């Protein structure tokens, strides 16, 4: 049996080697993959360069400040930049649609700006030409082109009957052909991964011990994806009468799974679990802030109580007698309330995003394309979740920075003639620079918990079905 499988595999490979069209396609795809990888690499370096430079610049600007009033410094603010992830040159993920920098200032949470999706509504309908995107969209077409005639063609030309009569079991045929297509897949996607590993290694400091593991997992992921398409191709090829029909049917399946369904699901999820638009979101935050109280209004009930509590705590009767600066305390309290309100609304948005993603991920088992796409983005740290993590890290940094300034305001500035005073410039050096803490692999993959299992089962089931007695009987009956 094993011998036969190897023989069939060899024969299939030899016959494919003779086809000039396939050679042409293969060369073109290789070229495309390399170009995609190279441009991705260029983009990565450019963006890395810019982010690092800009981050250094703003840190330097911060440290170079003269003696200043802390609240002025809070309005001077700071920036947080999102360095591109080390493997983003392989899979650009959602990078085009999210901003890379956030302005961090007092009283206000800005969102990330300067995305690169100019004319996206016209040019990015199929996302960018990244290596991952080519493997996801175009590689399946090539597998279809390789294998649509594998069984239906043999059936049509009558060679299937001959093979069967020679005692070649259908199972061996399927196994042999699958093996040959898998070999071809490996041959053709391996160079990109090797190249990617080389490029990743050349990033030096960015290259962590995790990168090879991530790349290895990516390679395994795309191999499973290949296996899925091989299984589908062979299944359709075995059940349909003529190769032409197999081709049309497979193309239709490809179109539905990789193009139509992901779009429909995303649109549907968006309208099912709508998140707030910017205007609504900002209005909601503003209204909630108004409800809590206005720290500038002396008769405001919330801050009157806050004042009374503070005076009682220190056992004095006026704010002037306090050992600390009451204005600084009010700033701290105001910032705390404001950040809490923002967080509440932001969490609601996050929940909507999660529900949308949850909805899409229900279909992982039915459409492994969705799973592979999302898993690949998670491995390369280019999915929505990683971006939102950056936003949250930046907000945490903003809050800590502003509150530290408010502390200085409370302790180093006297209440009397508050605005005219300054604190020493040496304080600015005590602030830590913003560094994005890159998530670990376990965090990246946390959301998938066991859902990676389902698509794998689907692939196994497809092959089991191909090898089942029922299938074999069908084939024998047909020839």
């Amino acid at each position, binding site marked *: 049996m094993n011998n036969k499988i190897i023989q069939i595999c060899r024969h299939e490979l030899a016959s494919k080697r003779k086809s000039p069209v396939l050679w042409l396609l293969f060369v073109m795809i290789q070229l495309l993959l390399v170009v995609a990888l190279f441009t991705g690499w260029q983009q990565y370096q450019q963006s890395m360069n810019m982010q690092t430079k800009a981050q250094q610049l703003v840190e330097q600007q911060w440290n170079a400040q003269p003696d200043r009033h802390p609240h002025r410094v809070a309005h001077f603010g700071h920036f947080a930049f999102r360095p591109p992830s080390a493997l983003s040159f392989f899979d650009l993920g959602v990078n085009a649609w999210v901003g890379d920098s956030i302005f961090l200032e007092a009283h206000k949470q800005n969102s990330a*700006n300067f995305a690169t999706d100019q004319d996206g509504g016209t040019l990015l309908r199929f996302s960018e030409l990244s290596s991952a995107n080519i493997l996801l969209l175009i590689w399946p077409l090539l597998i279809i082109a390789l294998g649509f005639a594998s069984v239906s063609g043999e059936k049509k030309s009558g060679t299937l009957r001959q093979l069967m009569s020679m005692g070649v079991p259908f199972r061996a045929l399927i196994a042999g052909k699958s093996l040959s297509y898998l070999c071809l897949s490996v041959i053709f996607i391996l160079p990109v991964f090797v190249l990617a590993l080389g490029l990743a290694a050349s990033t030096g400091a960015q290259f962590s011990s995790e990168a090879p593991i991530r790349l290895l997992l990516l390679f395994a992921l795309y191999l499973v994806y290949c296996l899925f398409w091989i299984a589908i191709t062979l299944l359709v090829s075995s059940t349909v009468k003529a190769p032409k029909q197999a081709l*049309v049917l497979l193309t239709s399946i490809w179109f539905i799974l990789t193009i139509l369904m992901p779009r429909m699901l995303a*649109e549907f999820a968006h309208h099912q679990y709508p998140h707030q638009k910017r205007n609504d979101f900002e209005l909601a935050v503003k209204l909630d802030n108004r409800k809590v109280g206005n720290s500038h209004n002396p008769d405001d009930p919330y801050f009157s109580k806050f004042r009374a509590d503070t005076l009682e705590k220190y056992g004095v009767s006026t704010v002037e007698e306090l050992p600390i600066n009451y204005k600084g305390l009010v700033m701290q309290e105001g910032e705390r309330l404001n950040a809490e309100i923002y967080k509440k609304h932001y969490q609601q948005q996050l929940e909507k995003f999660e529900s949308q993603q949850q909805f899409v991920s229900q279909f992982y088992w039915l459409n492994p394309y969705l799973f592979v796409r999302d898993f690949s983005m998670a491995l390369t740290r280019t*999915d929505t979740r990683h971006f939102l993590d950056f936003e949250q890290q930046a907000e945490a940094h903003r809050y800590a920075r502003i509150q530290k300034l408010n502390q200085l305001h409370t302790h180093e500035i006297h209440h009397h003639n508050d605005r005219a005073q300054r604190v020493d410039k040496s304080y600015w050096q005590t602030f830590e620079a913003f560094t994005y803490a890159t998530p670990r692999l376990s965090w990246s993959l946390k959301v998938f918990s066991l859902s990676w299992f389902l698509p794998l089962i689907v692939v196994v089931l497809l092959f089991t079905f191909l090898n089942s007695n029922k299938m074999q009987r069908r084939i024998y009956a047909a020839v």
Partner: protein
Amino acid sequence: MLLFKLECKRLFAGTVNKLVLVLFLLSGIFAIYQGALGYKSIRIDQYKSTVVFQKEREHVSSREALPEPGSLAYYASAPTQWQLSPWAALFVGETSSSMVAAKIRATALQSQIYNREIVNPSQQRAGGLDLGFVLVYFLPLVIGILTVTLISDEQHAGRWRLLNAMPRSVFSLVGKQIALRFVVIWFMVALLLISAALLLSLPFDIFFWTVLGATSLYMVFWFALAAIIMSFGKNSVFNSLTYLSSWVVLALLLPGAVHLYLSNQYHSDAPLEITLQLRMTLNDGWDQDKQATLDAFVAKESKWSNTAPLGEAFDWKWYYAQQHMSDIAVQDQVEAYRRSNAARQNQLQKLSVLSPALFFQLSLNELAKTSGNFQIKYQQQIADYHQTIRHYFYDFLFFDKQVSRQDIADFPKFEPQTMVAQGGSWKLPLSTAVVALMLMIAIVRIRKVKVI
């Protein structure tokens, strides 16, 4: 007539044929429905912004003491709106990821203009499904699946010889078969467009006929391509693969390549650089001689040059003068960025002729006023309105006028200008010429097809 019935039967006999047609209709209906929802939420956003602003003004007016003009200007974020055509529901373009009702106030423009809409990036990554997508990318595949194997199937079934033996020409027979498919698909497209028009209450005006006409022209292109591929007389598999490859190249790879080229060619860190510099200018202004800033300001805005000199205390008029001066400090960069964007748009228009899919997609978005081109026009309108707001407040700020309730009621409203696409007149003749040429080649080649 008999032949016609027979052909109809053949067309609808194949399971795959039926499946593809049904799928096409379904995704069209889905896209129209989702588009209608999306457009509604855009309109609500725009309407709500004006209502909220109206409420804020009433709230301010109802106070016993009106705020001083400087403080009023600080909090007056006035709504604008991207004046879309109702067709934006079907061809969403850039509207799904950018602000359609941006708010603007009298502080520095450059610190406000780069705000983005909140989007779920995963949804953007999936690509979006509007009617434009169905027409531009799905439609060619439907045409291919129904058409590209016509002759080879006849040959395969052995009917080709028979047909050739008949007195009537082969060409007229194949022509009729193709025409039948064209008519069936055309009716489906028309059905989708008419139901969209009814659902969204779009008038059956010049736009409607332009969209229908452009779609028909686009269909002719793909039919002609299918006919040319058929005319080589190869087998069905070859035809299908060639057609599919053309689709991949024209619809998928070329737009991707154009995007890569444009982002490499016009890669601009300008917005970031502008923002960083603006921040430093705004900040340094507090340490500089305030009267000097004011003097520099009135040199630019001479209408307010009669303003009194600054006193010791904080003065709002200095604040707004310095906000505007920081906009002016980055003006060269802004201008360069604007030029680079315009050049990018130009280049995109030129490069779009490389792929009919890209060309058609861009034209549809232009028609619905949702393309990048119109986004830039809208941003220009925001900038103009920003100036109106500034000037409105300057009278109060620099001439020490008090704001009255009437002034608040008279606050200048954003008047959306009608936006027209310029320089698109070459598009129709060019595309007609290209499609006509393709059609001629197809006809000539099909006439020559020999019996094998």
